[in-house]
């Protein structure tokens, strides 16, 4: 039976978030001290060896990313924490920032030392205004105690654009522009904020860093699934008994998430589908529930781990109606920079509405499939590439629900 394991949420409920002494008592900022005593190449090698992969969705090896920025020559480098957390059903980064802001600051400061940056930013989603003062207070405390030397952090607010979670759109937004993704390459570690080498990591990624430095890469690499080790925070929504959060090793299966931790489906109803990774995730049917949640196992079944948001629907739900709502989300959030996404999300939403209202046919399904496939490879950024997934996977696994809507 799978058990919870808390790494990034290790201090949750154990410390007063804004009492820095509480954090220090738990060993806080010791890892930063330890990191500073190492040479930066060894430090980065340690992070690389832990095989920590980004928790923001793309799953890139964190230490590897840092090595690119460390190797870049520049008069200024930046560390950015991606706290945009816009993926519907996700609130894990908020939990970390609300309950243990210092762990984030410590993780960022270790990164800054490793790559040679003196300025950091936390890009906080506009929907979390109440966290601005929490973060600023924690930053000031660390500064006053002289814990974070030669590194300053500024909090910047987003303003309600989902696409700004994409790292280059986020950078544009900090630069005070429309948050439209950039063409890549160059990637941020070589040319990011104000064209300087920049590391962008997710809140949960940074929160792992102090523990990895404390306990070592080998310890971390041995937890969960070897290809994507460590833990992952999940947030459960929809038709589950326990609509809550928990942190588990990455070897945990989807079935354990939904039925053991989630406590199963309320009201004696049957499971219908689960969507993992937020609104851009695939819908997963019963038959695939024994898949481990680790990044590559999920990719192997055509799904994603994404943010770890887990949205469950029971047999009484109208899957086509839910997918139609999601298509509306992408139409609304497309930034409009590239045509396949700007037009594609609008046409997808239109076709889904048509089917949902009972005016559709098999021809519309064929169109949706063709359009979705084109979008998945021709859109400029991950938003447009992932947008078709909920529609395509519900068509694949729940075709009968679509056909039932035809006149």
């Amino acid at each position: 039976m799978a058990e919870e394991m808390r790494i990034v949420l290790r201090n949750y409920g154990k410390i007063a978030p804004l009492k820095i002494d509480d954090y220090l008592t738990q060993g806080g900022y010791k890892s930063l001290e330890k990191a500073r005593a190492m040479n930066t190449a060894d430090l980065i090698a340690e992070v690389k060896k832990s095989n920590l992969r980004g928790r923001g969705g793309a799953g890139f090896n964190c230490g590897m990313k840092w090595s690119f920025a460390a190797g870049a020559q520049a008069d200024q480098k930046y560390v950015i924490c991606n706290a945009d957390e816009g993926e519907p059903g996700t609130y894990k980064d908020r939990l970390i920032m609300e309950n243990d802001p210092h762990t984030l600051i410590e993780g960022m400061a270790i990164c800054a030392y490793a790559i040679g940056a003196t300025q950091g930013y936390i890009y906080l989603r506009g929907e979390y205004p109440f966290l601005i003062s929490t973060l600023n207070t924690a930053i000031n405390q660390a500064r006053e105690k002289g814990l974070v030397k030669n590194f300053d952090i500024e909090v910047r607010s987003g303003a309600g654009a989902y696409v700004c979670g994409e790292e280059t759109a986020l950078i544009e937004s900090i630069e005070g522009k429309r948050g439209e993704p950039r063409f890549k390459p160059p990637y941020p570690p070589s040319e990011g904020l104000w064209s300087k080498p920049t590391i962008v990591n997710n809140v949960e990624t940074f929160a792992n860093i102090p523990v990895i430095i404390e306990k070592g890469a080998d310890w971390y690499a041995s937890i969960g699934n070897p290809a994507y080790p460590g833990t992952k925070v999940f947030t459960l929504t929809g038709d589950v008994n326990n609509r809550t959060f928990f942190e588990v090793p990455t070897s945990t299966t989807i079935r354990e998430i939904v039925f053991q931790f989630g406590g199963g489906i309320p009201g004696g109803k049957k499971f219908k589908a689960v969507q993992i990774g937020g609104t851009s995730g695939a819908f997963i049917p019963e038959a695939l529930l024994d898949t481990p949640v680790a990044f590559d196992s999920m990719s192997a079944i055509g799904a994603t781990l994404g943010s770890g948001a887990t949205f469950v629907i029971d047999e009484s739900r109208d899957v086509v109606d839910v997918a139609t709502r999601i298509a509306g989300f992408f139409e609304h959030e497309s930034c409009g920079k590239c045509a396949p996404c700007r037009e594609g999300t609008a046409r997808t939403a239109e076709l889904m509405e048509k089917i949902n209202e009972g005016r559709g046919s098999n021809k519309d399904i064929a169109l949706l499939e063709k359009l979705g496939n084109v979008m998945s490879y021709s859109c400029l950024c991950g938003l447009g590439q992932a947008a078709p997934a909920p529609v395509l996977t519900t068509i694949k696994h729940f075709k009968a629900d679509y056909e039932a809507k035809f006149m």
Partner: protein
Amino acid sequence: MDYKEIIAQYDGKAGGIIEAYHALLREFSYLPEEAIAEAARIFKLSTAEAYGIATFYSMFSVEARGKNVVRICESAPCHVAGASDVVAALERELGIKMGESTADGKFALEFTECVGQCQATPVITINGKPYLDVSPAKIPAIIAEYK
């Protein structure tokens, strides 16, 4: 503070126009035309660029709207938790439709996507403050706090 003083606080801050817009929003609840022109001047942008930024982000409004901005999450988890019943209750309570403002200028009613409080759906926010597990029955009391 008038809009010029608000914007002046961010003068010299690289990329600070978005922070300035947030500050304007706290004061006026929307971005008045003259404030956008002033922001363009301070941040050395064309007025078109300053408008482009203002209209890109869903939290900013370039049209006058009610002082208290009530937003209801319509993302899938809130959707299946009964957000549409809450929408109906809000429309009834305020006597306006989604996307409108009350005649007395006190309230604006808008949709939003997920606001990151999905442990207690459906969710509404008023001026950024979240209200959790809302139901039609709870709406009158919540709205009364702002009357």
